[in-house]
């Protein structure tokens, strides 16, 4: 499913601050897109607009050529946030199964909760409650819940940001495996340069408020990617420079509103 964003503008009601200023973006079906930018630059806002959690002030979002409505009951977009957001009174299995309640199209689900859990390596923990699981495992349950929805678009808002380095690497490998298997369109907000280069097909660099796309970098490196590859480091350097430039530019306008 492709995504076409046309002249997207967003500002909060009763606020003179423009968060997003004229975003134009085309994402072809199955692309893995990382959105990178400094804290509070509005990258989460962009993702929330795509998810229908916020309504755009101006502009349109088209999914497969038709305009997306925030209240449409279409299971086309699956959301994953920074916290695992598990229901503490349900087991891992029940948490994953909860997502299936909200698939209203009547089609049989792509896979069972049990299969989704085993895909993320949690088959043995299906009947544990979240408080018994580590932070990384909780985020894996959230990943299984994302997976079970069978959505063609995955919107991920810094899903691994709260995890330690090693756990984050394991989880991003799992995510990569899932993407290679199902090829959903992924829009993935991060502030981690290495991770973006390691995973994404394409990296968008956002400037701070009002957020604009200042760089649109296709990553053409063979997979699996090697961090010691000279090409890898070239991308890292390019991203560093781009982010540093937005930081200088944003230093004057940044109002301290942090939506992340």
């Amino acid at each position, binding site marked *: 499913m492709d995504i076409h964003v046309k002249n997207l503008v967003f500002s909060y009601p009763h606020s003179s601050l423009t968060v997003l200023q004229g975003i134009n973006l085309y994402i072809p079906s199955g692309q893995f897109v990382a959105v990178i930018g400094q804290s509070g630059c509005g990258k989460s806002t962009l993702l929330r607009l795509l998810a229908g959690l916020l309504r755009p002030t101006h502009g349109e979002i088209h999914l497969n050529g038709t305009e997306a409505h925030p209240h449409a009951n279409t299971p086309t977009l699956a959301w994953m946030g920074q916290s695992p*957001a598990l229901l503490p009174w349900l087991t891992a299995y029940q948490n994953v199964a909860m997502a299936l309640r909200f698939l209203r199209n009547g089609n049989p689900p792509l896979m069972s909760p049990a299969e989704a859990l085993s895909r993320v390596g949690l088959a043995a923990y299906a009947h544990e409650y979240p408080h018994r699981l580590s932070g990384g495992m909780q985020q894996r349950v959230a990943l299984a819940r994302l997976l079970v929805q069978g959505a063609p678009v995955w919107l991920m808002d810094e899903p691994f940001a709260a995890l330690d380095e090693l756990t984050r690497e394991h989880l991003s490998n799992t995510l990569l495996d899932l993407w290679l298997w199902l090829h959903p369109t992924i829009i993935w907000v991060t502030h981690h340069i290495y991770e973006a280069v390691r995973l994404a097909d394409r990296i968008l660099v956002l400037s701070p408020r009002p957020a604009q796309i200042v760089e649109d970098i296709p990553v053409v490196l063979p997979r699996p990617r090697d961090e010691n590859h000279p090409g890898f480091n070239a991308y890292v350097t390019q991203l560093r420079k781009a982010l540093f430039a937005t930081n200088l530019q944003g230093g004057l306008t940044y109002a301290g509103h942090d939506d992340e």
Partner: protein
Amino acid sequence: MRGTTTSSRYITWGFVIGTLAAWETGVYFWDIPVYLLPPPTLILRTLVQNAPVYLQSSLVTFGEALLGLCVGTSIGVFIAVLVTFWPTLEHGVMSLAILIKSTPLVAIAPLLTIWLGFGWQPKVVITALVTFFPVLINVLVGLQTIDSGLLDLFRSWRASRWELLWHLRLPHSLPYIFAALKVSTPLALIGAIVAEWTGASGGLGRLMWLAYTNLNLPHLFAAIFILAAAGIALYRLTTQVERRLAFWYLSSQ
């Protein structure tokens, strides 16, 4: 009351028995007349000798208290849900609730007895009036303090407000309901007793009132003993049910 160890249980019983023993000794030592303070052994004997009367009266009072508690809890939860759905109602509804809450029980109880008679009805109303408020306040917090990550998730699923209530808000308020019940179950007993005190055809409150007017302190204390035991038992019951239903909350502490 969580995780009561064997040793802390011994300490509790030791404390209870020690207090009763000191009381008994004190009464004999200072030769306190029975119309001022009867010794515990006499109170217990009174209880045993009049067991059928106390049992029957207790059933009346506890029945009123529990029914009132159920009604009050339901009303509290209902109003909390209403206010969560229509936040514009909050100010008006809360003002009214505080008005009802701050009117003295002893002022309303006789009125209700005049309006509704000497039966169980005014007792249930009074008990409901004193128990709905803690439930309302706590459940309101439980319904409204939902983690923003969870709200985002349910909104991404386009959950309706009813689905949000049923799958997210109500289960999340369960620990808050239990926190409220720990306050409101003893209040329910007090409510029923006070209501009976102002005029009743049965119940522990009526027994107490009769005992009081006749200066029959062994009977008065017997009823107090029953109420104390019932209060503890109800509190225990609440924590037991809480452990079953809100286990995730207790074990994540």
